[in-house]
């Protein structure tokens, strides 16, 4: 695994240029994303953050190859993205493990699709499972695993084929707070070793700061890139850093950006009076999270 990562370290540059996506409805054209330009350098960890429905997942799905841009271009290492491929591994919020395959068979799946012979892929799947402490569960079906375990399997399944880019769509969104912290640490440790380019979508500000080298902040619909913030925290990262003044300053900055957009996103449902005293109640989450 380390051998592959060394070879791929200079690969995995994602460039999204003037991306726009709209779709037809009875009421007319709905613009989901407008003029979004982002990039991920080889080996970089980049997050996209924004209120619910801002089109951050749309952007990610376009990089994965599930959606075709209405305008603009999506390319990985200069090649335009036409369809999903094993070059761009994806991790989903709903885990999306194959229930009829054991944990190991799930991890092996990408390698099987590559035509790797059984004994070889079994060995590499077991190595990956061992690294994440899941070897004891290799012959179990996903249904018997906890959420955190499932998502660990989801991540190593996506990494098993040695993708150029790892795409994660709110991967820890359905985990409880404690498990989420542990998973963030596991992910940052794994990334530290593999140095695969990562594009990470989340609405959790702390998560974005803790994990990323850079964070893109998106506006409410139609989604556009509102800001790009570099995260100069040192690596390797540890949970204890989340208390540092540097971290908290970054968080304050991002929060004020996000709050404006979250308020726009929830529209006319909440009036000014209802929002008084919001600073106290938010506990570091965006309004969209609280509501």
């Amino acid at each position, binding site marked *: 695994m380390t051998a592959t990562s060394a070879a791929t370290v200079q690969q995995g540059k994602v460039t999204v240029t003037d991306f726009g996506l709209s779709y037809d409805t009875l009421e007319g054209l709905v613009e989901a994303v407008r003029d979004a330009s982002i990039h991920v350098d080889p080996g970089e960890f980049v997050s996209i953050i924004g209120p619910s429905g801002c089109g951050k997942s749309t952007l990610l799905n376009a990089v*994965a*190859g*599930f959606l075709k841009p209405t305008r603009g271009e999506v390319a990985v290492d200069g090649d335009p993205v036409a*369809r*999903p*491929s*094993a070059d*761009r*591994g*994806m991790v*989903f919020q*709903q885990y*999306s*493990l*194959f*229930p*009829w*395959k054991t944990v190991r068979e799930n991890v092996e*799946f*990408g390698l099987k*699709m*590559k035509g790797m012979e059984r004994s070889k892929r079994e060995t590499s799947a077991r190595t990956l499972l061992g690294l994440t402490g899941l070897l004891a569960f290799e012959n179990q*079906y996903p*249904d018997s695993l906890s959420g955190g375990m499932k998502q660990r399997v989801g991540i190593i*399944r*996506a990494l098993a*084929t040695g993708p150029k880019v790892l795409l994660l769509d709110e991967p820890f969104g359905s985990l409880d707070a404690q498990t989420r912290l542990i998973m963030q640490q596991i992910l940052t440790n794994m990334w530290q070793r593999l140095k695969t380019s990562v594009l990470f979508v989340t609405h959790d500000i702390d998560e974005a700061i803790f994990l990323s080298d850079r964070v893109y902040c998106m506006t409410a619909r139609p989604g556009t890139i509102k800001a790009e913030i570099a995260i100069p925290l040192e690596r390797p990262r540890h949970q204890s850093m989340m208390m540092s003044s540097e971290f908290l300053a970054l968080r304050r900055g991002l929060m004020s950006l996000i709050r404006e957009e979250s308020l726009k996103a929830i529209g006319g449902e909440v009036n000014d009076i209802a929002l008084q005293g919001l600073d106290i109640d938010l506990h570091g989450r965006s309004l969209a999270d609280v509501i």
Partner: protein
Amino acid sequence: MNGAARKLTESVARSPATETPPAVPSATEPIPAPLTIHQVWRWLVLHRRQLRTLAIGTASLALFLLSWHLLTKYRVTVHVRFVNVPSPEMVFDSLMRVSRDNKFLSHVFLSCRRIFIGFAIAATIAVPLGLVMGRFRLVREIVFPVSEVLRPIPAIAWVPMSIMLWPSNEESIVFITLLGSFFPILLNTLHGMAMVDPVLIRAAQCLGAREASIFREVYFPAALPHVFTGLTVGMGVAWVSLIAAEMISGQFGIGYFTWEAYSLVQYADIALGMICIGVLGLGSSALIRGVGRVVMPWAKT
């Protein structure tokens, strides 16, 4: 009740451990495993739900037999007439009599063979057809209207047409059995394909799977639980159709046996035929469920 039972289990589990020091396992010394009264009690407590179900089920069947016995013994007539209805004892005598003669067994064997052939053909056509219809919209658009028109026609209504269509009686009965099981299998397979979680398809695509692999590795196993539901339902309808066909156009088979018993005024044999059909239907459904469990080890229950 539950809490008390759990406490009991715990105390039972703890008591032997606290009284005897943990035995050092040695290779030479054979470890005796006598079933202590404690273990028997624990087993009973752990399986109390299943035991309860079993006990109530047995009692319920016994009650059914008893009511049947009483209703026929006293020839109850309350609008419904039990005058000519055979008693359980008569049916049992009848069973003893026919089990010695090959004719009855060959009736049973013939019915089973018809079910097997008809059902097997139905499954081999309906399952692949359902999978393909679920995957390819055009195929579905072409086949679905025809299947929807034919589906509501009960198998028994096919009897005259079937006799015209097929050169032999045997073939026409198998055909009716086939028709009966065909549509439940097809529709459930189709439903299974519609229920496939699209995120699993996307996950497979991201791992480099192409059309054929996705069909084999995702669509098929994802639809399998519904396919088995279809097979179970289809098996039930196959028996319904078979018996109807045998009663009308058969010369052999358990359905024919039951109808013949009525014509020959052998009332005990009517009930015997009915019970036999029930047992065979139950057995064949259980067989399919058993196969399902083997084929789908990931599915619960």
